[in-house]
């Protein structure tokens, strides 16, 4: 699986967050999907910036474009409802750092340079204001292409990324499974402690 590297790239599909402000219609979300590809490619192919600068920019924009709070709550599933307020806040703060750090830290300039284009295959608005986008990341000949789908959530005032599916692997479904198991074994406090531990190890 080239899942992880591609997932990183796919996560960065959220980079054009500023354009999402006030994007309250499906067409605005569709426009977001079409414009972000060129913006992301621009960042990845920018030779003037160092890898650290690119990572920093990716992390900042990722947090703006991806609805990390919602993803965090969803990942915890039923355990979120029973968690006390203090734990909830600590959990969401740590989760945002965890998600950003784990994925953005994998940014590899060389891998990004292999990518030549992102082709949008379809944009389908579905129930509950969800918009399903299918795309394919195209690489140089011989490096293989990867299908990346993502789900946008349209709200009255914005449009944010709710899920990213790289080669069939859903970030949301995987996180839900992972965090559900961890919360079941050690509670929300334990989940927070483990995320902090992973963050510390990653630094």
């Amino acid at each position, binding site marked *: *699986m080239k899942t992880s590297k591609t997932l990183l790239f796919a996560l960065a599909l959220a980079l054009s967050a500023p354009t999402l402000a006030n994007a309250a219609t499906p067409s605005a979300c569709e426009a977001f999907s079409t414009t972000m590809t060129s913006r992301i490619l621009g960042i990845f192919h920018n030779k003037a910036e160092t890898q650290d600068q690119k990572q920093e920019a990716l992390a900042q924009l990722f947090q703006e474009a991806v609805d990390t709070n919602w993803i965090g709550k969803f990942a915890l599933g039923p355990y979120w409802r029973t968690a006390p307020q203090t734990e909830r806040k600590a959990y969401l703060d740590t989760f945002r750092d965890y998600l950003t750090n784990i994925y953005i830290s994998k940014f590899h300039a060389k891998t990004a340079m292999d990518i030549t284009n992102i082709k949008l295959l379809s944009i389908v608005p579905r129930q509950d204001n969800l918009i399903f986008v299918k795309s394919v990341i195209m690489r140089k000949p011989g490096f293989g292409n990867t299908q990346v789908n993502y789900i946008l959530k349209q709200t009255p005032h914005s449009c944010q990324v709710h899920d990213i599916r790289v080669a069939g692997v859903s970030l949301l479904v995987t996180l839900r499974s992972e965090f559900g198991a961890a919360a079941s074994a050690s509670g929300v406090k334990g989940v927070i402690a483990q995320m902090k531990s992973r963050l510390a190890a990653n630094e």
Partner: protein
Amino acid sequence: MVRRLAWLHAGLGFNKNRKKIVDTRKQHPMPKSPFPLSALFIATISFCCLYRPGIALAQDDAAAYGVQDFNRRDPYKSVNKAIFSFNLKVDKAVLRPVERQYAKLPHVVRHGVDNFMKNLTEPLNFVNGVLQLSPRVAMTAAGRFFLNTTFGIAGFRDYAGTKGFEYEDEGFSKTLARYGVGEGDYVVLPVIGPSTVRGTVGMIADYIIDPVGWVATTPENVAIGTATAVNDRYQNNDAIDEFYYQSIAPYTMTRAAYLQHQAFNKN
């Protein structure tokens, strides 16, 4: 979860019936009423169900996002977990350190080795293409093998890929899938890692029908196996590191990601 919901519904349904029973009892008083016990029973069952995590899953939009219960696919969980722990130790002690050293080689060398290893699987891809009755798959594999072995300098360069003939991994598991064989349960194989029943059968069949395996001598097969292990560990490094070392629940995350990927890939 569905079963638990059914229980809950059954409980509520029983609740309605209970009213009838109570009404009947008003007309025909019984010496000892079962009502308090039934009410307590229903209340307990309902309370337990409502506060079970599985029930709560149904209350949010989990279904809209395709959330699945992967435990259902994992009946051998305790054995799988034990093998997973063993694999983690093997990876930490052997594969990961070797991969770290391998990663220090120049990019052109690593890319060449990857191409070479892929080229060695083309005869097997061809056989599976034939078994799948797919001329496109078979001809692509045969064409790639010829072009890469000759113009691609013994397969170290993916010449066919530059001409638009992309590599396709066609194992026997994919052939079985083509004929409608389901994936089966999730299993973890020693050293090899996550798989399914169909994937395991497919891997054994690939070992038997692989033309390269027939031609190569035992030492050559060992060398190919070792090189494949190192190359695969390198190619999947980010995913393996993420699942094994950065996840807060490595076993569950690996299982979830693997089963989703298999369903997507059908191999």
